[in-house]
């Protein structure tokens, strides 16, 4: 019990460390922007007053960090200057702890509001992709595993490897070409009605389904050699029941972990899929409204939210996994 608590504490500590690093990273990365964010947003034609006002409003006139290493106003030599806690890094932290990620440089709306309005669409897409992947992978994996070594198994293995190597920005346009342009079955992009999620979900889930097929296969092969399978067969159960009721129940445990870990990967990968299908999620917000329009405050918020979701999904899976399979706790 004590070891278990220690283990959970360790995971949480790593979680906090990672979150701290991510927040620090997005606050410090904004300093790398070549030139000055205010000029980038308002343009070269902006009046000095407008620039000053913009900087003041978004706190860009304040020191970036606890200390700075710059020349003074007269342009003397560079020197270290201690700024104390009155800096942007602390500002950003204070805001986040209050759930405030600042206001968009472009639209002046709160970043939190912008992200919340898109977050649901991304989660929806990721979960749909997960379902697609499982629906494809479990039957294929079982077929491959129970036909181990023969032609069918080898063919499925090669297909799975090809699937893993196919990036979503190849699969996506291909699907659009076949199902929207050629056959005209679905809308090529956007989010209208339930059918518009099919292509994005398949695109995002394709690589995962290939990976899962391999996992289910090796898991089934491993479980098939267990004693309980022989017992079940000896009882006279037909092969179907043995595989789907007994083997799969145990065989899916490692698959569940991968699923949880992959949910995070799907969230990050959704950026590309959302762009292909114009799916109004947080990834599209990051690329189209954030990066393309140089709305750095929005970029900070999106990167932060996507990474924290990813990290939380991974940590939760890890903790859940330990509960699911008691054997893991021993090792």
């Amino acid at each position, binding site marked *: 019990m004590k070891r278990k608590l220690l283990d959970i504490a360790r995971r949480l500590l*790593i*979680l906090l*460390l*990672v979150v701290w*690093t*991510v927040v620090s*990273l*997005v606050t410090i*990365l*904004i300093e*790398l*922007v*070549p030139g000055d964010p205010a000029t980038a947003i308002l343009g070269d034609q902006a009046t000095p007053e407008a620039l000053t006002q913009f900087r003041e409003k978004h706190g860009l006139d304040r020191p970036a960090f606890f200390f700075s290493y710059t020349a003074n106003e007269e342009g003397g030599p560079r020197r270290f200057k201690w700024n104390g806690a009155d800096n942007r890094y602390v500002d950003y932290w204070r805001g986040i702890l209050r759930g405030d990620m600042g206001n968009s440089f472009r639209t002046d709306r709160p970043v939190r509001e912008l992200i919340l309005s898109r977050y649901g669409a991304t989660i929806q897409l990721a979960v749909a992709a997960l379902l697609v992947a499982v629906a494809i992978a479990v039957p294929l994996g079982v077929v491959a595993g129970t036909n181990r070594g023969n032609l069918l198994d080898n063919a499925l293995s*090669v297909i799975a*490897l*090809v699937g*893993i*190597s*196919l*990036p979503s*920005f*190849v699969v*996506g*346009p*291909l699907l*659009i*070409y076949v199902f*929207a*342009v050629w056959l005209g079955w679905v809308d*090529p992009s956007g989010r209208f009605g339930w059918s518009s999620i099919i292509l994005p979900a398949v695109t995002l889930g394709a690589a995962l389904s290939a990976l899962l097929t391999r996992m289910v296969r090796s898991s089934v092969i491993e479980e098939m050699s267990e004693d309980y399978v022989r017992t079940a067969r000896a009882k006279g159960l037909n092969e179907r029941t043995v595989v789907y009721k007994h083997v799969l129940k145990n065989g899916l445990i490692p698959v569940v972990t991968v699923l949880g870990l992959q949910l*995070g*990967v799907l*969230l*990050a*990968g959704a*950026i*590309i899929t959302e*762009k*292909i299908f114009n799916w109004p999620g947080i990834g599209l917000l*990051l*690329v189209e409204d*954030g*990066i*393309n329009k140089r709305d*750095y405050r929005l*970029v900070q918020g999106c*990167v932060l939210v*996507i*990474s924290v979701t*990813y*990290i939380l999904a*991974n940590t939760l899976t890890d903790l859940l996994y330990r509960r699911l399979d008691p054997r893991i706790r021993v090792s």
Partner: protein
Amino acid sequence: MNRLAYFGLVFIVLLVLVALCAPLIATHQVGTTDLLARYKPPSAAHWLGTDATGRDVFSRVVYGARISLQVGLVVVAVSATVGTIIGALAGYYGGWIDRVVSGYVINVFLAFPGLLLAIAIVAFLGQGLNKLIFALCIIGWVGYARVMRGQVLKVREYDFVQAARALGARDWRILLFHVLPNAVQPLIVQASLGMAGAVLSEASLSFLGLGVPPPAPSWGVMLEEARDLSTLARAPHAMLAPGLAIALTVLAFNFLGDGLREYLDPRQRKR
């Protein structure tokens, strides 16, 4: 090695030759647009047809191999070197270096989606080939460091290392001449898989408009330019050609990596 690995190796050799001899192989000038020959299907004049501005797709795919391989090679070389040095030092000396490297840095990097980090870096730094390479190196070195650390931890306990130490060899000499040569094998596998990852990341970022800037014939850029509905309807080959090039290249490096892993670790064979 298995047959798929040989396929990978042959494809990679061909790809390298294509990249090196690009000016000889390409049938047209890469940048030349021809508005009278837009959306042309594959023909004798344009082997893979033309795109929305009448550029020859085949020539662009050929030159695209240069960008992909260049990014891949530089990223793998830099990440592998940095990762090896850091991983080897952490594994060999242990102590606080190891606690910082494996306890903090590696854990944090592994808990973070790599592509997102690259996107974030490029988003703030701005677009460009060198910035792209920099971003990919930042996310790339951790994998090598982790592999190397594990290897060095194992190798430094071998008898010949103890013997070298007993003979009074200095640390750097032991590390460089005794430990490293016996620890690099898994690194070769990692490098092959790393090439696949780098090629894929370059294409992903370029596709998002965050990599190599558009007129350059990067496969990711070509895909992005060919995926709008009017181009897709009239010239699907402009999308298929770079898509196939990316997929085959990534597949080839993955096949080679998997094959090398089996070859170098006989315990994994026949599974």
